[in-house]
């Protein structure tokens, strides 16, 4: 799929996704070794996005399975379309009557109807859910299993079986084996520790907040209309904010929202009075907002002091 690590970086960048070499290495290895990637990290650093972008970069179909408490095989793998089966038996009542006409005894009737049960347990009535769709797909796909930590341990165990050899057995149909191994991306917010067995089968990728340089790149890419100076300042501020003890640290997506808001309001500088007021797009908790505003004030104070001393020095330069 990819020839080299650099190609991964370039092709993902082509889809507006900026990643560092470490991320690219894992992606490259996963594609080459046919191993699932387990992506962990704080909320809003682009874990899900990685899966989506991979599918567009590789021009493969994206099959997404969103996990939640109580997700079971029927929702993830396949289900018989019970209502449709019933509907058909009702519509075909006469036909069934015909088949049963010749039967002398109950035994004979059951025999002749059981010869027909293949009709009702065939692909026609099989409702393929994401996992089965990924297995049956005629082309390779990208399978995104989102927030796998939200699922129950039973489901995790089941997932393990599917991920290790990509085949499932449907009792009525036999074993179905994948024609192409999909590229699997699992994301986790670490709300519970995944089992060792699952982790063993995956390559592990920890996505963290990007460094300021990379974050600036991301902002330029996603919000090109933003003021360059402002973005640089925002990135610096974000970096400081993330070091604070917050309930929820500002994510990349929230940062992008904030920049967009600032740009819409035509703000060019963090000094603006409106900046503190728009912080609610960045922070989602009252206490966090308060802290962030304090940090903003502090940041501005330090910057001002620096500017002044810088100005004083340049004055000195002029004197000489």
């Amino acid at each position, binding site marked *: 799929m990819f020839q080299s*690590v650099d190609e991964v970086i370039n092709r993902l960048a082509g889809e507006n996704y900026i990643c560092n*070499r*470490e991320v690219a*290495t*894992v992606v*490259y*290895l996963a594609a*080459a*070794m046919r*191993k699932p990637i*387990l992506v*962990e990290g704080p909320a809003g650093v682009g874990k899900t996005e990685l899966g989506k972008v991979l599918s567009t970069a590789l021009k493969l179909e994206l099959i997404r399975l969103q996990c939640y*408490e*109580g997700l079971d095989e029927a929702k993830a793998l396949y289900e018989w379309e019970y*209502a449709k089966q*019933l509907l058909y038996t*009702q519509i075909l009542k006469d036909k069934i009557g015909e088949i049963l006409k010749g039967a002398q005894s109950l035994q004979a009737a059951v025999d002749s109807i059981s010869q027909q049960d293949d009709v009702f347990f065939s692909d026609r009535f099989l409702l393929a859910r994401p996992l089965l769709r990924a297995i049956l797909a005629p082309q390779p796909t990208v399978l995104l299993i989102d927030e796998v930590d939200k699922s*129950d341990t039973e489901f995790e165990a089941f997932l393990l079986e599917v991920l290790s050899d990509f085949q499932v057995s449907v009792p009525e149909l036999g074993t179905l084996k994948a024609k192409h191994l999909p590229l699997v991306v699992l994301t986790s917010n*670490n*709300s*519970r*520790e995944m089992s*060792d067995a699952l*982790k*063993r089968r*995956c*390559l*592990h*990728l*920890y996505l963290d907040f990007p460094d300021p340089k990379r974050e600036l790149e991301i902002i330029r890419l996603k919000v090109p209309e933003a003021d360059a100076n402002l973005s640089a300042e925002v990135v610096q501020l974000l970096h400081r904010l993330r070091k604070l*003890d917050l*309930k929820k640290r500002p994510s990349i997506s929230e940062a992008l929202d904030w920049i967009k808001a600032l740009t819409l309001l035509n703000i060019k500088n963090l000094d603006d009075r409106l900046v503190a007021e728009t912080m609610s797009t960045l922070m989602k908790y009252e*206490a966090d907002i308060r802290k962030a505003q304090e940090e903003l004030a502090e940041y501005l104070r330090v910057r001002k002091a620096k500017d002044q001393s810088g100005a004083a020095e340049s004055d000195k330069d002029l004197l000489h």
Partner: protein
Amino acid sequence: MLERILEFSRMLRQNGVRVSVSENMDAVRALELLGIADRTLFKSALRASLVKRSIDVEPFNRLFDLYFLGQGQSPRATEQELMAELGLTPEQFEKMLEQIREFLRRMDGEVSPLTRALLAGELAQVERMMFEAAEGELGEMTQWARGTGFIDQIAARFMLASIREEIEKFKMALARAGAEPRIPWISEKISEYAEQRLRELMRLAQRLLQREMQKKEAAVPGRRRSDDLSQKSFAYYTEEDIRRMSEVVTRLARRFKNLLSLRRRRARRGRLAVSATFRKNLQYGGVPFRIQLERRRKEKPQVVVLCDISDSVLNASRFMLQFVYSIQDLYTKVRSFVFVSDIGEVTRLFEEHELRQAVEMALRGDVIDVYSHSNFGRAFELFHRNYISAVTGKTTFVIIGDGRNNYNRANEWVVREIRQKAKQLIWLNPESRLTWGYGDSEMPRYAQYCDLVEECRNIEQLYKVIDRIAA
């Protein structure tokens, strides 16, 4: 390379990182694909295939640096230092190196490869050679090399004496040949240069030895820190432990919630409700299109927590308060109280402040006087007088405390009454079970009214308790 990977993963295991055979195989396959030339690629490939838990990342990084770094990373920096020290520009330096190399060629056979590489400034190669030399022999050496004569030992081991000799020889040969008269600074600089190089070699050897020793130390099977923490009694927590605790606590609380919600969900998914199914499907002519399941009443757990914050259980209550705080964060109906001799509600305090601050405030005495002697009986009586309405049939009541009453009146009738009103009553005691009932401990008296009394002295026990509560 394979051996080094295996040795590295052995080291990881000894430091508590779980590495399986299949993960080792993955690492090797990954390296086959990527090669080992690029250090960052190399590291991320190993990390992706060997390290799967975020708490393992830090030991991995540490061990990786210890094990793989130090080779070939320094030459550039030292070269610049050297230039500065000799007071040469890069061009001059280059010229001098050329001279030296030229001369070394002429002296072919008289100097050993190590000296040759050293003088020619091929530090990476020097390091590799020394590394190879160290590999086999350092093992026994490290045990006795720590005492006096450390440097001498290294010198002897790496035959530095003979290298020094060879360098002297080189300098003499240089002097005889008279170098290049056209560039007068070269001959004097060269001997200085050789000295510097020799010192560098010394440093290198020292570093190598240290690294080798650290590696040995890292390989000593030490108990894992987080496991340590989970079995350590709260009473012995250090500052560092307390700082790390909060993350463990949040996870515990989440587990508590997960378990409860799991139970709720199972309950919601009832059995087939036959009569409801018939009724519903009458519209389809009695053919059961839509299946009806029995519905059960959703139950929102209510929790009331009483936490002893007297001096005797200070560390434990700090931990427990964090736990209580996290629970309150996750549930809507939690009321939290702290007591010593008075009792005070901290629900609001926990709602309005963030974790660390809230816990500090509670322990500092913002709510109640924390310097009095604990008096469970009085606190219970006060609770009964002021807050008993908080206890309903849905309440899970949790008392955290050691039950040491300072020989005051026990007032166990309050506990009995709470037991009658509440759904369940749980008592967690941060003291060892063996000491219950001795001295001023009133545990047996209180315990008779509790549904569950557990010793809860460390995280592991708390884990178990949570499992039992939720089961």
